[in-house]
Structure formats: structure tokens, C-alpha cells
């Protein structure tokens, strides 16, 4: 990269046509496959298989459409860090939601006490909200 000279048009890397066409076809096939699988009830495997297919599709999209197969490692790392932090966000939040009441299981449904928050009526910017409460 550093040795490129100005004013000399330098064709950047061009993604070979066979990869793009191949990706297009496989993405379409996978999308249809996913729909077909969803029509059968395979129990827990439904989610597992379908999520697997989603991940394959996402990987194909990134590798060949976004061109990560030929990209610099640093750029890929940069982009994937978004997913890493998303994973941190999700997993830490789940560490709360999944383990609530682990040490003190109060024998009542944790969600579903129907005492509702009444919006303050009249005079505010959303007075029409009162109509809906309850």
C-alpha cells in the first residue's frame, strides 16, 4: 500500500466473479432452506439448525460480499469487535436475567404481578395515554 504512487490509477483488489455469483446462489438457497426447515417441527433442533444456517449466511456475506476474505486482518478485527462487544452486552445482561432469585426463590411468578403503572393523567405531553391504561 505504501509504495503506491499518486496519479497512477491502481485498480484495487477485485473480487473474482465466481465468488460473488457463488455467494449469491448459496445465500438464496440457504434462505429457502431455512424457510423449509421452519415448516417442520424438530423441537429444539429447529433453533439450532436455523441459527447455524443464519451464521453460515452471515459469514458468507462478510467473506465474499464485504470482501473480508481478502481484507487486512486489522480491519476484520475492527469490524468483528462490534460483535464481540455485543456478545459481552448480551451475556452479562443474561447473567442477571437468568440467575435472578437463584438464592431466594420466592414462590411466585417473577413476571406477571398485574399491578400496573398508571401514567400520570392530564396536563402532560401525553395526556391521551390515560385512555389506554388498563
Amino acid at each position: 500500500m505504501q509504495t503506491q504512487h499518486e496519479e497512477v490509477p491502481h485498480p484495487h483488489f477485485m473480487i473474482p466473479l465466481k465468488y460473488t455469483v457463488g455467494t449469491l446462489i448459496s445465500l438464496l438457497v440457504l434462505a429457502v432452506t431455512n424457510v423449509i426447515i421452519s415448516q417442520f417441527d424438530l423441537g429444539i433442533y429447529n433453533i439450532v439448525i436455523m441459527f447455524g444456517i443464519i451464521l453460515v449466511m452471515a459469514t458468507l456475506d462478510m467473506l465474499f460480499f464485504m470482501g473480508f476474505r481478502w481484507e487486512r486482518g486489522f480491519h476484520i478485527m475492527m469490524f468483528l469487535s462490534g460483535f464481540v462487544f455485543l456478545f459481552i452486552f448480551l451475556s452479562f445482561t443474561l447473567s442477571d436475567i437468568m440467575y435472578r432469585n437463584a438464592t431466594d426463590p420466592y414462590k411466585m411468578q417473577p413476571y406477571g404481578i398485574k399491578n400496573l403503572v398508571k401514567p400520570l393523567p392530564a396536563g402532560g405531553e401525553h395526556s391521551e395515554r390515560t385512555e389506554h391504561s388498563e
Partner: protein
Amino acid sequence: MDSATGIKQHHVAHHFSSSAQEFEAAKLGTLVFLVTEVLFFGGLFVGYAILRMMYPAMFVEAASHLSWQLGLLNTIFLITSAFTMIMSVRSAQLNKRQACFYFLLITFLLAACFMGVKAIEYAQKFEHGLLPAMWFSGEGVAETLPLFFGLYFAMTGLHGIHIIVGMGLLIWLMIRTRRGEFYSGYFTPLEMVGLYWHVVDLVWIFLFPLLYLIR
């Protein structure tokens, strides 16, 4: 302007020392921006995951209110448009100005089709009162169904806004292509919008099965 090819030479901005450095900055900047997009959508996906954990039954029922046929159609539109986007970049790299323009146009039209189908879907939801809780009047077994449609409209709505922004960018690219600003030596905006378009595509690859299919 080179009158023979209709190509306008690109000039490197004053604070960069080479076009390679300029391209590198644009690429890195775009990728970092796309990271923020991933996290922006990510918040909604986290909300999805948590609600799903809290109310699995609601999601099973909700998927039956959505039409997988229309969803699949939209998936096909979007994946194809990602392909034509790539082809337009490729055409610019090969100095094929006309082809570049037409591929952009096809991409734009496919995006428009996507939005059209989206409009049909939204209209159906409106008709059945399947709306966020403020206006929800639909029928459903799950008590928390309004919650799902809040999430549904938030996720697909935000994605739709990104498609519309992308369509605006495509128009901008078409105008610049007509002016002959992209050629083998300079096609940075094409490539960057392309990356954006693929991320929007990526989001839909997740959205479609999660909302319409998995039950």
C-alpha cells in the same frame, strides 16, 4: 475532464499525502462507523433475546401472525441487491461507466421493491390491529402479544429507515456516476456505500429468521 472517456480525475484532499492513505482512512472510517451500526441494532437484538427468554410462548404465537412468504420475498430482493451492488463496484473498477450506473439503478429498484413489500406487510398489520401497545387492538392468545409487535415494529422500522437512507445514497452515487467521477483509480464512495449496504443486508439475514421463522 477527459473528454474521450468521460472520466473526471480525482484529487487527493490536501491533508493526505497519497491516494492510498486517503483510501485507507475512508475504509477504516467506514468500518468503524459500521461497527457503531452493528451495536446500534445490537441493542434491539439484546432486547429480543431477553424478551424471548422471558416469554417463549409469545414468540411462537407471534411468528404465526407474520407472513414468511413476504419475508422470503424480501430476503431474495435484498440478497440480490447486495450482488448488484458488488457488480456496480466491479464495473467502476473496470471503467465501465454505463454498467456501473445500471447496476446501481437495479440495486435501487430492488430496495424499492423491498420497501414496497414492507408497506404491504405493515398495511396488513394495521388492518388487524397488530400494533405497538399504544394502539394494539389485535387478537391473540398470548397476553404479552403487544410487546412482540412493539419489538417487531422497532426492529423492522429501524431497518427500513436504513434501507431508505441507503436508497438516498444510491441516488447520490448514480448522479456521481453519470458525471463520470468513478473510475479504476477512484471509486471509494461506491465501495463504502457497498459496505454499508452489505451490513444492512447482514442485519436482515438475522432479522428474517428470528422474527418470522424461529418458533
